[in-house]
C-alpha cells in the first residue's frame, strides 16, 4: 500500500512538546504523521476525528498529557472518554477502532512519541488503506433555480397574510425570523439574500406553518430546496456537535464501508432474508449511532430498536434485519445535500432489493417519512411498503394479534413527532396503542396532533437559545397535564428533550422535569418483553455502556475488523 497517513491532534503542553523533544533529540520516526496542535486534548471533538477519516486519513492519533497532568485539570479525561466513544462509532461505521489511538505523552517523552508513531504506522500498514480514500468526490448538486423552487412549493400563491409567521414557534421567539417575510423577499426577487442568511437555517421544517397556510405554500420544502443553494456556496447550518453526524452520513453515502448493523439484535429473533411472502424488515436506522454519540445527553436510543424487535417477536413476527442497511439520508436531504441523499437512497434500495424486502417496519418517523415520501421521488421503481411501528401495532390491536397482559399504571401525554404527524398524518395510531395499554391514562397537551409544538431541533441544525426556549415551553405543557411520562414516537424528539433537561434549565426545574420515553418502551413493558426474556439485555444505558467499555476490543461488533 501507499504510505499510511496519520493525523495527530496533540496538546500544546505535553504531546506537542514531546514531539518537539523527539525532534530536537534527533529520534528517528516515520514521516507519516501530520501534527495539529491544539491547546488541550480536551478540545478534540469526535467531529475532528471523523472529518480526518472522511478526508482520507488512515489513522488518527490523539495525544495529551498523562492523567492528572492536564494543564486544564481534566481536559485529557474528557479526551479519553470521547476517544472511547469515537472508537465505538468507528466500529459501527465499519472503519475499525484500531485506526484511532490515544496516547499520553509527556513533554520529555520524545521516545514515547516516536515509538507510538513507529508502532502506529506499522499497524496501519497491516490494516491497509482507509477504504474512504478511494471514495469519489460527490458530484456537485443541481442547484434548483429560484423560479422552480417558488413554483414547486406554491410560493407564488402567497398572499402575505402572515398566518405562517404567527404560527411559527421560532418567529415567536426570534423577531428576525419570519416565514412570511422570507417568502415575500423571494417574491420580490431577492431570493439570493436568503441563501446567505441565518434565517435559512433557523427554520425547524416542523411544518406547523404549512399545516395552517390557507394557500398550501410548502414552506418546509421551500427552505429545504433553498438550502441546496446555500450549501453549494459553502454555507452550512453550523450543525450540532460540529457536524459529526454529517460526517458519518457522508461516509455512509460515499464509502463502501463493511458495516455490521445487526450486532445489537443479540438475543432477539431476526432473520437475514425474507422467507415468507409477508415477511417484514425492521429498519433500525441510526439508532445504534445515536446510542454511542448521544449517550451523554440521552442514553438508550438503541432500546427503541431492541424493544421494537422484541415487540414484533411477541406478536409473532420475526423481522428481517439487514447488516448492511444504511442511513436513510433524511438529514442530508434537509440540510441541502440532495446528492448524497440520493446516493444513500439508491444504496438502500439496492440492498432491500437484493434481500427481497417488500415491506418495512420502522420506529423512526424521519426514516418513515423519507422512505414514504422522498424515496419514491428519487428511486426508480421503488415499491417497498413502509409502516410506522405504531400503525402496525394499532392494526394488530384490531386484528387481535396484540393484547397486553401487564398493567402499566401511569398517566402519559404524547408528543406528536413532526414527521409522523404533520408530514405523514399519523395522529391516531400511537394514541390508540397507548390507550389500549391497561392502566395507561392518556392526557393531551394544550397543543396536540396537528397543532403539536416541535421538539425544537431538526436535522441537527438550529440548536440554540431558540430551540431551548421552545423545548422548555413544550415540556412545561407536558408537565402541566399532570402526566408522569412524556411519550414520543421519535428517537430525535427524545434526544432533544432529554438534552434540554440534561444541563441547567432556565427557571423552575420542577415545571419542566418529566421523564421521556419512547412508545415502544411502554408497549414492551406492557407485553412483559422488557422485564422478561430479555431483561438482562434490555440495554439499560449504563449497563450497556459499562459492558461495552469492559469488553473493549473483544466485543462481537469489533471481532470483524
Amino acid at each position, binding site marked *: 500500500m501507499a504510505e499510511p497517513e496519520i493525523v495527530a491532534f496533540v496538546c500544546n503542553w505535553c504531546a506537542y512538546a514531546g514531539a518537539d523533544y523527539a525532534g530536537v533529540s534527533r529520534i528517528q520516526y516515520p514521516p507519516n504523521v501530520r501534527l495539529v496542535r491544539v491547546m488541550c486534548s480536551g478540545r478534540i471533538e469526535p467531529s475532528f476525528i471523523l472529518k480526518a477519516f472522511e478526508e482520507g486519513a488512515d489513522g488518527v492519533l490523539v495525544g495529551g498529557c498523562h492523567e492528572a497532568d492536564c494543564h486544564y485539570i481534566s481536559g485529557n479525561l474528557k479526551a479519553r472518554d470521547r476517544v472511547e466513544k469515537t472508537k465505538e462509532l468507528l466500529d459501527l461505521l465499519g472503519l475499525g477502532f484500531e485506526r484511532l489511538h490515544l496516547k499520553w505523552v509527556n513533554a520529555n517523552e520524545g521516545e514515547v512519541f516516536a515509538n507510538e508513531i513507529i508502532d502506529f504506522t506499522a499497524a496501519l500498514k497491516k490494516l491497509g488503506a482507509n477504504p474512504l480514500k478511494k471514495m469519489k468526490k460527490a458530484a456537485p448538486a443541481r442547484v434548483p433555480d429560484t423560479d422552480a423552487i417558488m413554483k414547486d412549493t406554491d410560493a407564488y400563491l402567497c*398572499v*402575505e*397574510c*402572515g*398566518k*405562517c*409567521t*404567527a*404560527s*411559527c414557534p421560532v*418567529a*415567536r421567539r426570534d*423577531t428576525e425570523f*419570519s416565514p*412570511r*417575510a422570507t417568502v415575500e423577499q423571494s417574491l420580490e426577487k431577492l431570493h439570493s439574500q436568503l441563501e446567505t442568511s441565518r434565517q435559512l437555517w433557523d427554520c425547524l421544517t416542523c411544518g406547523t*406553518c404549512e399545516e*395552517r*397556510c*390557507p*394557500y*398550501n405554500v410548502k414552506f418546509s420544502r421551500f427552505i429545504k430546496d433553498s438550502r441546496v443553494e446555500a450549501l453549494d456556496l459553502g454555507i452550512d447550518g453550523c450543525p450540532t456537535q460540529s457536524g459529526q453526524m454529517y460526517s458519518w452520513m457522508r461516509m455512509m453515502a460515499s464509502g463502501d464501508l463493511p458495516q455490521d448493523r445487526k450486532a445489537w439484535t443479540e438475543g432477539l429473533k431476526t432473520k437475514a432474508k425474507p422467507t415468507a411472502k409477508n415477511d417484514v424488515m425492521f429498519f433500525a436506522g441510526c439508532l445504534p449511532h445515536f446510542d454511542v454519540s448521544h449517550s451523554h445527553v440521552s442514553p438508550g436510543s438503541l432500546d427503541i430498536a431492541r424493544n421494537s424487535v422484541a415487540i414484533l417477536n411477541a406478536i409473532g413476527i420475526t423481522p428481517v434485519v439487514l447488516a448492511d442497511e444504511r442511513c436513510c439520508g433524511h438529514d442530508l436531504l434537509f440540510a441541502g445535500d440532495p446528492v448524497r441523499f440520493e446516493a444513500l437512497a439508491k444504496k438502500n434500495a439496492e440492498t432491500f432489493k437484493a434481500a427481497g424486502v417488500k415491506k418495512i417496519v420502522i420506529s423512526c418517523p424521519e426514516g418513515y417519512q423519507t422512505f414514504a415520501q422522498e424515496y419514491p421521488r428519487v428511486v426508480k421503481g421503488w415499491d417497498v411498503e413502509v409502516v410506522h411501528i405504531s400503525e402496525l401495532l394499532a392494526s394488530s390491536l384490531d386484528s387481535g394479534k396484540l393484547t397486553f397482559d401487564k398493567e402499566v399504571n401511569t398517566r402519559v401525554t404524547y408528543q406528536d413527532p413532526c414527521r409522523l404527524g404533520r408530514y405523514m398524518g399519523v395522529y391516531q395510531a400511537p394514541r390508540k396503542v397507548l390507550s389500549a395499554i391497561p392502566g395507561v391514562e392518556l392526557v393531551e397537551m*394544550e397543543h396536540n*396532533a*396537528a*397543532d403539536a409544538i416541535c421538539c425544537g431541533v431538526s436535522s441537527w441544525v438550529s440548536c440554540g437559545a431558540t430551540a431551548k426556549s421552545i423545548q422548555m415551553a413544550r415540556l412545561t405543557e407536558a408537565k402541566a397535564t399532570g402526566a408522569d411520562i412524556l411519550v414520543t414516537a421519535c428517537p430525535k424528539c427524545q434526544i432533544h428533550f432529554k438534552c434540554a433537561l440534561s444541563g441547567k434549565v432556565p427557571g423552575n426545574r420542577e415545571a419542566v422535569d418529566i421523564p421521556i420515553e419512547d412508545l415502544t418502551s411502554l408497549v414492551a413493558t406492557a407485553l412483559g418483553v422488557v422485564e422478561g426474556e430479555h431483561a438482562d439485555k434490555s440495554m439499560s444505558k449504563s449497563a450497556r455502556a459499562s459492558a461495552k467499555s469492559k469488553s473493549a476490543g473483544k466485543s462481537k461488533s469489533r471481532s470483524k475488523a
Partner: protein
Amino acid sequence: MSESVLIIGGGVCGIQAALDLGDKGMHVYMVEKEPSIGGRMALLDKVFPTNDCSICILAPKMITCFNHPNVDVITCAEVEGLTGKAGAFKVKVHKNARYVDEDKCTGCDACTQACALAGRIPDEWNQNFSTRGAAYIPFMQAVPRVAIIDKERCLLLSRGKCKSQCVEACQRGAIDFKQKDQTVTLDVGAVIVATGLDMYDPTPVTEYGYGRFDNVIHSMEYERLINASGPTGGHLKRRSDDERPRRIAYIQCVGARDVRSGHPYCCSVCCMYATKDSMLAYMHHDDTENIIFYTDLRAFGRGFDEYIKRGVDEYGITYVRARPGEVTEDPETKNLYVWYDDTESGGVKSMEVDMVVLSTAFVPPPGISALGKALGVKMDEFDFFKASDDLLAPMDTNVPGIYIAGACTRPMDVTDAVTQGGGAADRAAQAINDFVGKTSAKAGSVR
C-alpha cells in the same frame, strides 16, 4: 302541461321570486326544508350596509308570501326527484310529518310549555345558546307560526312512552301523532332552485380553538347573541361567565380563501358583516373595542367602502392586516390571546381580548349535491349550482326550465340574493310562456 312554478327554498331569494311570480298571477309551489320560511336572513340581527333590522324588513315579506293567494308554501319538505321536461315537470316532494295540524294550530305555545322535555333540548335556531322542548316553534317570527314536534327527540315518537301533556294542553286538538310522512307529486312548468347556504363549521381549524375555548364563537352565534329576539335578549355575553366582552377580535376568512378547508373562494360578505358586527357591539356599548383581523378588505359593493370608513371614523373599529396563526386561552380568566403577525409593521404579537368571533365562510349545505343529482342540474367543484353561462345567463342551468338564484350559486349578500330571485322569477315566467304557451299552440294547430 303546467303553468305552476316550483321554488325550492324559502329564504329571502325564494320569497322574492315567489312574490314576483305570484303578483304576475302565476301559481307557485314553495318547498321549504325547515318548519319556517325566512331562511338565514330571518335569524340575523341587522343587515349591511344600511344596518336595517333584518327581521323587520323580512317578516312582512314572509307573511305576504305565505298568505299570497297564488303561493302554496309546503314546509318540512324536500324535493326527491324530477322527471319530464320544461313545461311539464313532475316533481316528487317528500313532506315530513309535523305532527301538528297546520290548519288548526294558532301558535299559542301551550304545547311547547307542556312538553315533558321543555327546556331540555339545545335550540339549534339559537345556535344552542338556549333550550326548547320536543314540541316547539322555531323562532318568534316563524312563518307559519305553527308548532312542530321533534320526531327524534319526542319521547312518544322515539320511545313510545310519554304522558303526552302536549295533546291535553292544545285546546284546538291540533297535535296529531298519527300524521305520516307524505310523498306528493307536483306538476310544474318551471323550477327555481334557491336553496341558499350553510355556514362553515370552524371546528377543523383547530388552531383557533373553536369548541375548545368557551369565548371563541362563530359569526352566526354572534348574530343570535346580539339579536334582540335571540337567546340573551340582545345582550352580548361571554359563554364562560356571562360577562359583557369589552374587547372583541374578529378573525376573517375562516374556512374561506383557504385551500385546506376546500373553499379557496372569497366568501364575499365577511368583511362587511364583521364590520356590521363591530358596529352593533359599539352601538350596544360604546366602550367596546373591536379589532378586525383581515386578509384583504373586500368592500366592493355600493356604499361598502363608505361603510368601512364609517366603521373606522364613527365606531372606532381597528382593522389589522393579518391572518392570526393561533388563539390561546388564559385558563383563569378565559380571556383569549390572538397571535398574529402584523404584516404592516412586522413581528409576531399577541393581543388579549375577551371574545373572538370567527367570521366563517358561506358554504353549500351538506348533501346539496343529492338535490343537484335529482334535478339533473350541474354543480361546480364546491357543490354550488352551476350556471350555464356565468356572464350572460347567470340564472340558467344546463336543464331548460330549471333556474338557480341566490347563495346556492355562489356566496352573496341579501341584495344580490334578492336581485337574483327577481331575475330567476322572470326567467321562469318566460319559460312558462315559451314552453307551455308554445306546446299549447302546437296542440291547438294539430286539432
